[in-house]
């Protein structure tokens, strides 16, 4: 879309944008009165130091799911900024499956139902805005924003009423049975006879990797994926070519919502083992940054997901090391990444093209 050769578009542009975002963040750090290099060193140490890798991958799991969700919708030029709400509903699907079935069915079967529940509930929360966009012409950005608030209202109501843990005053469900929880990676590794540090990393990371492959196959190796990309390039042309645009839009949103809903696998079924308020914690919005940075490609999203995982885990370390810099610096960097690699994507493209392609032009 940028008119650059693929290697520049995919390989160099994201790095330039990241460098710009980090540079701007360094200015903020310097203005606050700390040494940017020292801060970034602590960030890196916090993200990849001993025992930290599990946490980094745990955060990355969330970001890969929400990044894929945003990217899949982007393929058809749909802005799904409702991943927060869809993840929230995914959590509800998990909780309903676990709380109602865990005494009836064996644990592994309940877990399977819960996984399906996460995807289905997330999809359902995205299908409505998708359908409204396709058949009633309401703008998907606005409806998905509204659905985020509707989801959080629904959750406050459910968790402080019908689904609240009996005998307690806090807005959360009771804990799920041990048998239905997703196993932690450190438990699996220890069972195999190796040493492993405790971390929240669980089986969902594997699911996230599988989702990356599935999205790649879907988008670049199926008829449906072709339809999505055609719509993304030109809705008019897609319609003219006989692609059922409306149905494809609804289906794209359903799949995008299902991916966002799967983020809850990591948080609810993997770590919290209960449904709590606001477990999505802005990760849905981070997914937009991840998708933009990863150029909507599963491999790029995996890399960007790891980067943001490192940023969030390393950011948590800042709270202990500095008096003035806290983990919200990660949010600042995230905002800058969205700005540079999304909204200002076209600012440096011509400049980059001139700089790097000048030699080729001279040869020609």
């Amino acid at each position: 879309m940028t008119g650059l050769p693929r290697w520049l578009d995919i390989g160099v542009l994201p790095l330039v944008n990241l460098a710009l975002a980090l540079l701007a963040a360094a200015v903020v750090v310097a203005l606050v009165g700390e040494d940017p290099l020292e801060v970034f060193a602590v960030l890196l140490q916090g993200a990849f130091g001993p025992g930290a890798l599990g946490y980094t991958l745990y955060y990355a799991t969330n970001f890969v799911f929400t990044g894929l969700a945003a990217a899949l919708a982007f393929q058809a030029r749909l802005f799904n900024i409702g991943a927060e709400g869809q993840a929230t509903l995914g959590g509800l699907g998990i909780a309903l499956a676990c709380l109602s079935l865990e005494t009836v069915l064996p644990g592994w079967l309940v877990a399977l139902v819960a996984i399906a529940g996460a995807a289905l509930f997330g999809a359902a929360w995205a299908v409505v805005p998708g359908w409204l966009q396709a058949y009633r012409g309401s703008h998907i950005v606005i409806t998905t924003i509204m659905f985020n608030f509707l989801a959080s209202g629904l959750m406050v109501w459910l968790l402080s009423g019908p689904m609240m843990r009996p005998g307690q005053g806090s807005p959360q469900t009771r804990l799920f049975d041990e048998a239905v929880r997703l196993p932690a990676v450190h438990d699996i590794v220890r069972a195999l006879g190796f040493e492993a540090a405790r971390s929240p990393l669980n089986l969902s990371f594997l699911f996230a990797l599988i989702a990356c492959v599935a999205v790649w196959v879907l988008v670049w190796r199926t008829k449906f994926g072709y339809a999505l990309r055609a719509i993304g390039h030109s809705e008019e042309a897609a319609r003219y070519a006989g692609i059922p645009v409306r149905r494809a839009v609804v289906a794209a949103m359903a799949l995008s919502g299902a991916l966002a809903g799967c983020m809850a696998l990591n948080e609810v079924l993997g770590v919290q083992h209960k449904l709590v308020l606001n477990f999505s914690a802005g990760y849905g919005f981070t997914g937009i940054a991840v998708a933009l940075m990863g150029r909507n490609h599963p491999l790029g999203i995996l890399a960007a997901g790891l980067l943001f995982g490192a940023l969030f885990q390393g950011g948590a370390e800042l709270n202990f090391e500095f008096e003035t810099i806290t983990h919200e610096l990660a949010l600042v960097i995230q905002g800058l990444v969205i700005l540079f690699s999304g909204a200002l994507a076209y600012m440096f493209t011509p400049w980059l093209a001139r700089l790097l392609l000048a030699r080729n032009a001279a040869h020609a």
Partner: protein
Amino acid sequence: MPELWIDVLTVLDGTARLAAPLIFCAMAGLVSERSGIVDIGLEGKLLAGAFAAAAVATLTGSPWAGLAAALAASVMLALVHGFACITHRGEQIVSGVAVNILALGMTVVVANALFRHGGHTPALGAGERFSPIALPFAESLREVPLLGPLYAELVSGHNLLVYAAFLSVLLVWWLGWRTRFGLRLRAAGELPEAVDSAGVSVSALRYRGILIAGLLCGLAGAYLSIAHGAGFVREMSAGKGFLALAALIFGRWRPLPVLFACLLFGLLDTVAPRLQGMELPLIGPAPVALVSVLPYAMTVVLLAGFFGRAVPPGALGRPFVKEH
């Protein structure tokens, strides 16, 4: 009856207080979107304004300096949005998301750096914020039946910015529908090619629209932290920018209907906590959480066109490419 009348007035008084920031933000969105620029960054500008106002009011002791800082902070974010969307024709939605997240992070980072207070600013004293203004004769007229309490309870006793919020509606209406600038601004949002062929710069018009939006969001931010509240708390905008966006759509991008939408949403917000613990016929305990998201549900239904129809400005979200 007098007790009921006083109750009604108290609820309406609360409505005005809760609607004020919505009115500012919705008017900001109206001006920006009428010029053709989608503004989902209202929330971020509101938050940045609230922080800047509280921080500077704390440091200088003057609410006016706080207000000026709020305007500056909000306008700066508006200019970032404009630079991305107008100058570089970037995606307006993406830029709005960036503005929101940037504001969320920056306010806490700077608050921690300045005050080391967990992302808050210290509580403001009486002289450091805009306090309620008693209008003339409010107390002496209180005894007049019906109208006396109306004047004393509802009309009098708000801070300066509440009055400014209502005034901003009048101002936006006058500017947008009674001046040449307003006509051109709206044309830039409907059919920018026509504006361009008349020899008027679409970019300049849209920049002005975005600037006005920045100023209005700054006022809303100052209202939150140094008029209604007494200091900045992290994430204190709490979705009000998005609620204002809903009101903007609910009022179909027209000043007076948008004002009514803000008042309606403010009323729901005032009434919802009062329903807490109340038993409603058929429903049982009042689902307060569901009442408070009613505005979002109503906006979705309206957008879907099941009753009425909300048609956005024709060129909304479409970058303008000048032909050579």
